[in-house]
């Protein structure tokens, strides 16, 4: 693997992951992480949208006037989400019903906009697609950790399967304040682990 692709991978998954380092996409991250299953579905959908939007923007980049790029990104992102929504509704309806409103929330994920502006708009297709995948997975990892933690703490279960026989539940974890607190702990942990990492953000 060449140096650039390896850097993109390390940035997306660890050094500059959207959830705990760039603090982007907090709206869907906090709203959808109430259970492990929700987190899993949203992770998949977000990765897909990131790859599609990064790919399209990188391909069309020579043909977009610089001044008009932001509205253009918005159109691309909103269209990708709409298309995904239509396809899910047509071919996996029960999944669509579970995701419900959350799917539209992907549009509000700033990570997608940020990757379009900071990366895809200046890079050829392959690195742009790879960056979409890696940033998407980086977001997915944090989303899954938060989803599993919140479900386990709140209900003593994972993916709806009870793991603790007698657990009275700790409601706070599924409520929004619980989401903020757990995310704060994750960010603090990551900052601590990375306290000696002085590499400049890219």
């Amino acid at each position, binding site marked *: 693997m060449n140096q650039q692709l390896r850097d993109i991978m390390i940035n997306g998954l660890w050094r500059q992951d959207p959830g705990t380092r760039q603090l982007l996409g907090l709206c869907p991250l906090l709203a959808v992480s109430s259970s492990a299953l929700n987190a899993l579905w949203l992770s998949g959908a977000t990765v897909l949208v990131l790859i599609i939007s990064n790919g399209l923007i990188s391909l069309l980049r020579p043909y*977009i006037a610089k001044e008009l790029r932001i509205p253009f990104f918005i*159109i691309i992102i909103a269209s990708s989400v709409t298309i995904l929504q239509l396809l899910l509704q047509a071919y996996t*309806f029960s999944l669509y019903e579970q995701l419900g409103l959350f799917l539209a929330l992907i549009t509000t994920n700033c990570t997608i906009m940020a990757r379009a502006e900071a990366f895809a708009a200046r890079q050829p297709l392959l690195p742009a697609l790879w960056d979409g995948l890696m940033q998407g997975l980086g977001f997915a990892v944090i989303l899954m950790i938060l989803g599993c933690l919140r479900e386990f703490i709140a209900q003593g279960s994972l993916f709806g399967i009870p793991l603790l026989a007698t657990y009275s539940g700790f*409601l706070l974890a599924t409520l929004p304040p619980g989401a903020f607190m757990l995310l704060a702990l994750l960010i603090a942990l990551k900052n601590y682990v990375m306290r000696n990492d002085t590499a400049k953000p890219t």
Partner: protein
Amino acid sequence: MTTFQKITAFVGYTLLIAMLISGITYLTQQRIVTNQQHALQNALTQVLPADEYDNDITKDTLFITSHLLGSDQAQTIYRARKNGKVVAVIFTVIAPHGYNGAIKLLIGVRNNDQITGVRAIAHQETPGLGDKMEVRHSDWIYSFNNQSLQTLAPHEWAVKKDAGHFDAWTGATITPRAIVSAIHDALQYVAIHQHELFGNQEP
């Protein structure tokens, strides 16, 4: 590029993308409608067993607006017939005063005013505390089965905490209260409009 060219190109791309979305909408439309009808059929079967009627219930509808149904928007009423006779109706009722906004319920009522079943189809109540009306969390919602204005007196249409018939949930009284009162209102609506709902005119 001149400004004019830039804008023309931008509008052009936008149109292209709009066409792409229209194309996909066109291709998926039929499947989506079929899926939605399946989902509706499933939901209806939950509150009224399919062997109780023999018509295509999703097409035999009335549209009715009443404050007793909790919304100022028209609600669809599905009529279940056996041998042409209306045996039950199914409709949505909104319980406007849940703990966290409106709770949308689907309710089935037989032509003798008895409830065939109730299901919550949309709500934003607190997970783990105010969501015991969902069948996957508790059997509570089944306690409405076969109840009617005849089986319970008006003051019994309340939670036990308010000296009524229905269980309240630990830590959450507002939600069951809202649901019980919405269902009571719905039964009153059916009682008042008996003729309109169960009259035998064809759709």
